[in-house]
């Protein structure tokens, strides 16, 4: 009975709900594969297991690369690095951007001016360029450094969104009423203002993950990603690119495909959530 009711709700929500379902499924499968990589992958991803540059066959589903490593196994393990770095970077930009936006919007004045200026100048850089600069500065190869480089790019997104919402919420009467009963600024920020912004944060976050995956792949492709033997989609793409003219198509096709699938999955989920949670978009 309850299940039927939920099913009806789901159908009434229409397209966005199906987008969420499809995107969520894709993401779930990728996470599952990454977690269970040691059990799924037929070979060790970082050691040579056969002759180099073998085309896809029953023995090697996606062929082997220049060093004789199994591409299929590398793809399966590669998801781990990608997911870890994007999750880490999103977490960092969230924990930096949201409190800063809250503070800046709530306190206002000079603090707001300065923070907004810094954030706007960060925002004005093309994302990948900024990430390259920071990765080069911090030193690549280290997982955390790459995550930080990507995180810095997305901090202004959270900052601007949260700050804008705080500016309008702090003028609302219930905030004034809270002040009238002697509530402290911390209480007002975290129990009166933040809960109203959470749905918007969730939407930005889900869209942000897709961007983070692309940026991570971009950094790896440019050689600023994790260190070589570690399997990583972006890095394998770069590695295989050199042999494409010689006809070894499987070296770049499969990593590229995985990036596309992952990004599409997360974008579907993000856009679906956006349509479900953002009432202003729902009418159109």
């Amino acid at each position, binding site marked *: 009975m309850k299940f039927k009711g939920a099913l009806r709700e789901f159908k009434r929500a229409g397209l966005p709900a199906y987008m969420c379902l499809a995107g969520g499924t894709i993401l779930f499968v990728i996470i599952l594969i990454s977690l269970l990589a040691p059990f799924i992958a037929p070979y060790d991803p970082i050691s040579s297991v056969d002759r180099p540059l073998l085309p896809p066959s029953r023995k090697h589903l996606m062929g082997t690369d220049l060093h004789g490593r199994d591409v299929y196994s590398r793809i399966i393990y590669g998801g781990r690095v990608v997911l870890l770095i994007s999750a880490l970077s999103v977490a960092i930009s969230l924990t930096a951007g949201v409190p800063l936006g809250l503070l800046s919007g709530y306190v206002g004045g000079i603090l707001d001016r300065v923070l907004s200026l810094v954030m706007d100048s960060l925002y004005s850089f093309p994302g990948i360029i900024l990430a390259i600069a920071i990765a080069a500065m911090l030193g690549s190869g280290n997982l955390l450094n790459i995550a930080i480089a990507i995180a810095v790019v997305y901090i202004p997104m959270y900052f601007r969104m949260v700050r804008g919402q705080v500016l309008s919420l702090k003028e609302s009467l219930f905030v004034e*009423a809270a002040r009238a*009963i*002697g*509530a402290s600024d911390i209480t007002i920020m975290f129990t*009166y203002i933040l*809960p109203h912004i959470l749905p918007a944060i969730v939407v930005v976050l889900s869209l942000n993950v897709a961007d983070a995956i692309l940026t991570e792949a971009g950094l790896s492709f440019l050689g600023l990603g994790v260190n070589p033997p570690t399997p990583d989609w972006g890095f394998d793409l770069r590695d295989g690119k050199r042999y494409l003219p010689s006809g070894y198509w499987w070296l770049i096709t499969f990593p590229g495909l995985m990036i596309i699938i992952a990004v599409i999955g997360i974008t579907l989920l993000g856009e679906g959530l956006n349509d479900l949670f953002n009432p202003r978009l729902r009418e159109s």
Partner: protein
Amino acid sequence: MPLLEIRGLKVYYRARDGWVKAVDNVDLNLERGESLGLVGESGSGKSTLALALMKLLPPQARILGGSIIFKGRDLTRLPEEEYRKIRGKEISMIFQDPMTSFNPLMKIGDHITEIIMAHEKVSKGEAWERAEKLLETVGIPGERARDYPHQFSGGMRQRAMIAIALALNPDLLIADEPTTALDVIVQAQILDLIRKLKEKMNMALLFISHDISVVMEVADRIGVMYAGHLVELADVYSIAEDPLHPYTKGLIRSIPNILLSDQKLESIPGSPPDLSNPPPGCRFHPRCPYAMDICKREEPPMIKVNDRYVKCFLYRKGDR
């Protein structure tokens, strides 16, 4: 010593071309347990006065003079940290709009525990029990504390707001148009509730409204504000029976009388002045039927007539 003593208070708003004199040279006393009504039309400065007492003025407003002595301390000189301990505990406020004054994501009970826990060190459970009791004293079943604001009607929300304001037995309750957003039946119930609780808890009440008939229901004394000035201050009966200031006379005459249904409703001609550039002399003189030459030149002083005060040259010694 009175509970609250306002002396020469000036609250101005910064505007593009100078200052808007929202509250100008206002003197006011309030004794413990007394209820004072403040009437005046929109923009007369009555809400600004209330916000100045709570120090909740918008950033473009400045207190440019005068003092607010509350229990022997000058509130205009109190630092923000100290002020927070007074807000809600010693002075609390009921707002006009019960619809938007609640956080829609918080339960009614949580709003009440919030104020208790902001000022007293008690456990959440204890605060919640007190919240339920408070709701019962304002006529709402205690278990409704678990409801969210949207599950309450307008009247119930205003009752809940009163429960919040009274949670810590304040010495002074400021009610800024508490019944304006309610229909007449609920309005009467809320007024009755405020009056009863005020007696029971022996607090002072500052009741603000644009509707002089509502103020007369609850107040012992009435202050009439016009264009930032307090123009008359007297007990309710004197105001009702024998208003002195021409503006008060106009206000009293404009109350509709149910027994004289054929009578045309009287109004005061003209409209209130621009407060960034008020007329010289008495601010009411352009609309006053008794205006004299001196009214256009000099601002009238507050004149004591028996036990009441009026800011009008008509009552200068020897003239009456």
